[in-house]
C-alpha cells in the first residue's frame, strides 16, 4: 500500500480549507435569498448545502492536523501560530456541526410538515452565521502560519492552554475516557447501522407493503447514532491525532463516511419515496443502487475503522 504521505495531505487541506468559509457564504446567501423571496424550496436547498458543508468540515479539520505534522519544526513556521489556528478551527468545527445538525432536523421535520419550520430555519441560519465568523477567524490565523509578515497574533501562548491540548490530556491520561468513548462508538455504530439496514432493505424490496413514509420516524435514531460517533470519533482524533494522520485506512474510512453521510442526506430528502403513504412506491434501479452503495459504504467505514491497528499503522 502506498504511503499516505505520498499524496500530500497538506495539499488536500489547502483545497478543503476553503469549504467551511466559502461554502458558508454560499449557504448563507441561499438562505437569505430564500427568506427575502419567501421561497420554501430554496430554503431546503440552503439547508441541504449547509449539511454537506458540515460533512466536509470533518476532513478539512483532519487534513489540517496532517499538515501541522508536516510543517512543524520548519524554519519560519511558528508552532504556536499553527496551534492557535487549529484551536479556533476546532471551535469552528463544533459550531459547524451544530449548524449541520439543526439543518438536518429542519429538513427531517419539513418532510413531515410539508414545509420547513420558520424557527428551525432561523436557528440553523444563526448557527451557520456563528460558524462562519469563527471559521473566518480560523482562516485568518491560518494565513499567519506562512505569512509572518502579516503580523500574526500568536505570540507565545502556553501549549497547555489550547482546547485541543486539554481534550488530548483527558483522553490520554484518564483511565476511563478512551474506553468509555470506544464503547459509545460501538453502540452508536450499531444504532446507525440498524436503522439504515431497515430503510435500505425496504428500498431493496423487503417489507414491500409497508408505506415508505412509515419508516421516516426511524431516521432520527440513525442520526443519534451518527452524532454519538461523530463526537466520540472526534475525541479520538483530537486525543491522539498522530495515530490517525499517517494511516491509510483512516483516510479511506473518512472517504466512506462522506459517501455514507451524503447518502443519509439523500435519504432524508428522498421526496418521491417519502411521499408514499400507501405502500405503492417501488424503488427504481438507481434507488436500489443507492441502497447498495449505502450499505457498502457503512460496512467499508466499519472495516477501515476496525482494521486501523492492523493495516499500515499500528497503534
Amino acid at each position, binding site marked *: 500500500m502506498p504511503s499516505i504521505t505520498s499524496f500530500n495531505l497538506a495539499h488536500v487541506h489547502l483545497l478543503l480549507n476553503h469549504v467551511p468559509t466559502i461554502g458558508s457564504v454560499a449557504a448563507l446567501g441561499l438562505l437569505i435569498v430564500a427568506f427575502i423571496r419567501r421561497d420554501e424550496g430554496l430554503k431546503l436547498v440552503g439547508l441541504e448545502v449547509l449539511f454537506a458543508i458540515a460533512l466536509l468540515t470533518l476532513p478539512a479539520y483532519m487534513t489540517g492536523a496532517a499538515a501541522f505534522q508536516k510543517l512543524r519544526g520548519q524554519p519560519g513556521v511558528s508552532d504556536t501560530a499553527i496551534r492557535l489556528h487549529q484551536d479556533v478551527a476546532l471551535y469552528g468545527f463544533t459550531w459547524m456541526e451544530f449548524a449541520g445538525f439543526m439543518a438536518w432536523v429542519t429538513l427531517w421535520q419539513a418532510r413531515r410538515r410539508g414545509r420547513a419550520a420558520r424557527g428551525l430555519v432561523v436557528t440553523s441560519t444563526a448557527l451557520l452565521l456563528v460558524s462562519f465568523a469563527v471559521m473566518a477567524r480560523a482562516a485568518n490565523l491560518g494565513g499567519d502560519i506562512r505569512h509572518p509578515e502579516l503580523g500574526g497574533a500568536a505570540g507565545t501562548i502556553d501549549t497547555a492552554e489550547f482546547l485541543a491540548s486539554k481534550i488530548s490530556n483527558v483522553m490520554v491520561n484518564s483511565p476511563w475516557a478512551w474506553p468509555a468513548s470506544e*464503547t459509545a462508538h460501538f453502540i452508536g455504530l450499531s444504532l446507525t447501522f*440498524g436503522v439504515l439496514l431497515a430503510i435500505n432493505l425496504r428500498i431493496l424490496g423487503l417489507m414491500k407493503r409497508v408505506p415508505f413514509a412509515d419508516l421516516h420516524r426511524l431516521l432520527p435514531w440513525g442520526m443519534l447514532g451518527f452524532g454519538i460517533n461523530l463526537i466520540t470519533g472526534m475525541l479520538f482524533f483530537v486525543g491522539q491525532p498522530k495515530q490517525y494522520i499517517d494511516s491509510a485506512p483512516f483516510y479511506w474510512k473518512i472517504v466512506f463516511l462522506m459517501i455514507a453521510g451524503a447518502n443519509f442526506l439523500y435519504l432524508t430528502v428522498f421526496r418521491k419515496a417519502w411521499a408514499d403513504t400507501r405502500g405503492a412506491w417501488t424503488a427504481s434501479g438507481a434507488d436500489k443502487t443507492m441502497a447498495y452503495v449505502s450499505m457498502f459504504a457503512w460496512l467499508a467505514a466499519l472495516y477501515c475503522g*476496525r482494521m486501523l491497528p492492523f493495516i499500515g499503522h499500528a497503534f
Partner: protein
Amino acid sequence: MGLLVWLESLPLSVWVHESPSIWAQPTVLTLHTMGMAVLVGASSVLDLRLLGISRSIPLSAFRWVFRAVAISLAVNLVTGVLLFMARATLWGTAFPFLIKILLVVASAATLLPIRTYVLQSDPEQRDVSSRAKMLAMISIAAWAAAITAGRLLAYTVAG
C-alpha cells in the same frame, strides 16, 4: 485448564493468534464487529418499534429482523469461538469474559419471546402488549451492557 491448553495449541488457534496474515486475527475480529453491528442494529430497530417508534408499521413487517439476527448470530458464534480458541487460557480463566458471555446470552435470550410474539402477531397488528414493551426495554439495555462488557475486555483482560 488442560482442555484450554489443548484448545490453544490446535493449529487453527495458533494460526489465528500468531499468523501475520490480514486474514487471521484482524479479519476474524472485524467480522465479529460487523456481526455485532447487524445483530444489535437489527434487534434495536425492532425494540424501538415495540417501544412505539414508527407505530404505523404492523409488527409482522419486521419478520426479516429474525433472519438478520440468525445470520449475524451465526457469524459471531463462529468468529467468537475462533477468537476464544486463539487465547483460550486467557479468556477461559478471566472473570470479565464470563460476564460478557452471560450478557450476550441474556440479550439473545430476550429475542426468543420477542420472536414468538412478533411471529404470532396478527398481520395487521400494531398494538404492543406491555409485556413485549418490557422485553424490548430489557433487550436494548442488555445489548448495550454486552457491548460495554465486550469492549472493556480489551482493557481489563487483554490490556
